[in-house]
């Protein structure tokens, strides 16, 4: 993982013109770079944009894109849209949670290799249930195909 430096955050802020209205875009860039929103980065954003840290916290916790905790190397998003629900998408979550030994409040594996997240409709309803690993999309996922998918990302 990249180390968090003041200059890297400054560069992001500068790219967005140090403007308060760009807060979401700034946070997105930080998230893209580090996989989450590190606290020290948020403090720097708060100072530079003269936006209270409390407001940044509000924004960061409001949108599902943002995470305040470090995430795994591979992010597995499981679609929870209606079509996926009717096609038993919940079982995919159960199966992933079991295989990766995660729990209700643990979304990232101990070795930080995987994070499992539930997301809203991905727009591939016709191939429900859908799963996305990083940028790769998978459709018609079953409890059995989960292991197969995981193995592509180094899960023994």
């Amino acid at each position, binding site marked *: 993982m990249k180390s968090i430096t003041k200059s890297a955050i400054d560069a992001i802020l500068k790219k967005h013109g140090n403007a308060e209205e760009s*807060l*979401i875009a700034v*946070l997105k860039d930080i998230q893209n770079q580090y996989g989450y929103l590190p606290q020290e980065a948020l403090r720097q954003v708060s100072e530079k944009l003269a936006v209270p840290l409390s407001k940044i916290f509000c924004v960061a916790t409001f949108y599902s894109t943002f995470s305040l905790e470090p995430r795994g190397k591979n992010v597995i998003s499981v679609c929870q849209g209606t079509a996926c*629900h009717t096609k038993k998408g919940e079982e995919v979550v159960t199966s992933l949670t079991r295989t990766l030994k995660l729990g209700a409040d643990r979304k990232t594996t101990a070795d930080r290799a995987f994070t499992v997240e539930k997301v809203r409709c*991905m727009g591939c*309803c*016709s191939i429900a249930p859908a799963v996305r690993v990083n940028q790769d*999309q998978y459709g018609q996922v079953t409890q059995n195909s989960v292991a197969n998918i995981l193995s592509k990302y180094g899960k023994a």
Partner: protein
Amino acid sequence: MKVSGKKDLQKLQKEGMATLFPDRTRIMVGMATCCIAKGSAEVMSALKDEIKKQGLKADVVAVGCIGLCYQEPTIEVVQPGKPKITYGEMTPGKIPSLVACIKQGKVEKQSVLYRTDKEELPLNEGRHIFSKGASLKEFKGIQEYSEVPFFKKQRKVALRNAGFIDPENISEYIARGGYSSLMNTLASMKPEAVIAEVTKAGLRGRSGGGFPTGVKWQACRKADGKIKYMLCNVSEGDPGIGMHKSLLESDPHSVLEGMIIGAYAIGAKEGYIYISSGQTLGVMRMEKAVADAKACGFLGKSILKSGFDFTVKVKEGAGAYVCGEETALIRSFEGDWGEPRQRPPYPAVSGLWGKPTVINNVETLANVPVIMGKGAKWFSSIGSEKSKGTKVFSVVGEVNRPGLIEVPMGTTLREIIYDVGGGLPKGKTLKAVLAGGPAGGCVPKKLMNLPVDYEALMQAGSAMSSGGIIVMDEGNCMVDMNKYLLSFSEEESCGKCTPCRVGVRRMREIITDISEGKGREGDVELLEKMALLIKDGALCNLGKTAPNPVLATLRYFKDEYQAHIKKKKCSAAVCKSLKK
């Protein structure tokens, strides 16, 4: 190339026609998000390799979505003098024999779906005739596009180019009549006349309540202030549909052209396209479209020498369903968390940064160039009495042909599910159809003659909303479905107003109890009462519509609730704590 008049546009049209219908082979691969998920990228690379290997001279083009999701990955082949041939369920393994057939000018009989003899070019006067396939021996036994059950009852207006053009090639959009509406509008119509035309056409917002677009534009035009904004909402958080995304990925220019015309009508110089998070491909294609339109002079200073200036920026959201609501979207735009506010004032009077703002949905805008090109009369001849034009639906669930479809308003649910969607898979019986997602409601089998029409659906306790149609069989439990829909609304509630924050949560808790065998006498009445109170008391449409699914199921499936409560029975065997 900068376009400054009709001649330049014609030149680009010619360029586009030359790639759409070339004098050599053109092979199109559907490459929208869901096609890619089914492996179309692998098919495309296998195709490119095989073409080289077999020495075939052909252009391989990535196109958008033709809606045939159940047959993906799809490939279409255009060869001079021959009908266009569509192939389905392609895999890299099927490519060598396909390429061999193409090379010999033959049809690969194993994977062929249908042929197209003529293709409609709705905005470019008439149609392109490939060839009379029926007269050629090779193509005789293959079904023609117009006879294919999936397409027979469809009418493509908003999706007129989706899957036909390379979404990243502006000349192909222009070849199919694109930007000619903009050119004619700017050259010959006053903004007021544009608004009058759109009003006369009867165009209504394609997401949410179906507010008349012309009325919205008029309110913004008349609002005080020099600075106005035109916003396009691609914030599709609605679970169970993916159509806005698909439209954006397949034909970004149709949305952009509609937006430029709208901006001219209301008097906006700046516009933004708000795309909700996770739509990487849509964002990329839209950014390319904006850059290309700018290079052609359809955006920027004095567009097509009309003196009208307009610029567009693409902005990506960060993922929140409530941001589909106008005032929440505006707040999110301003860099805040997306909490809605009281209306009025409506955004048309006080919107982005307090300035008059129009917010239109993608599908609504994609219709605008057609209305300006073909006229209000043509547009309003399609549809039902109060709902004009067509509507795009994503038909999914227990149906043989899930896909992205577009039908005239007034088409019945039965036609959509059986004629277009091919009915339910063998051995499954229809139980209910959920239209409108968490803002709509499930309607039972006996209402399949219900037309898709804003008022008719609303009266039946369902909704058009943004167009998801989910077909459910006897294996679905209505109590469980509502538990799911309410937990969606609960999680997505912004928490600002109490009826939504607490009320929806309480309703979800009661339904959860019912599903776990802890239902009590009087729960049904309590749910009904709460639903009406929340509808009355919630601040925005997310809250106001959240109880809809419960009301609809209490209307049509009350017995099922009672069986859960009194007999502790779930006939669909979905609620695990109950007996079957």
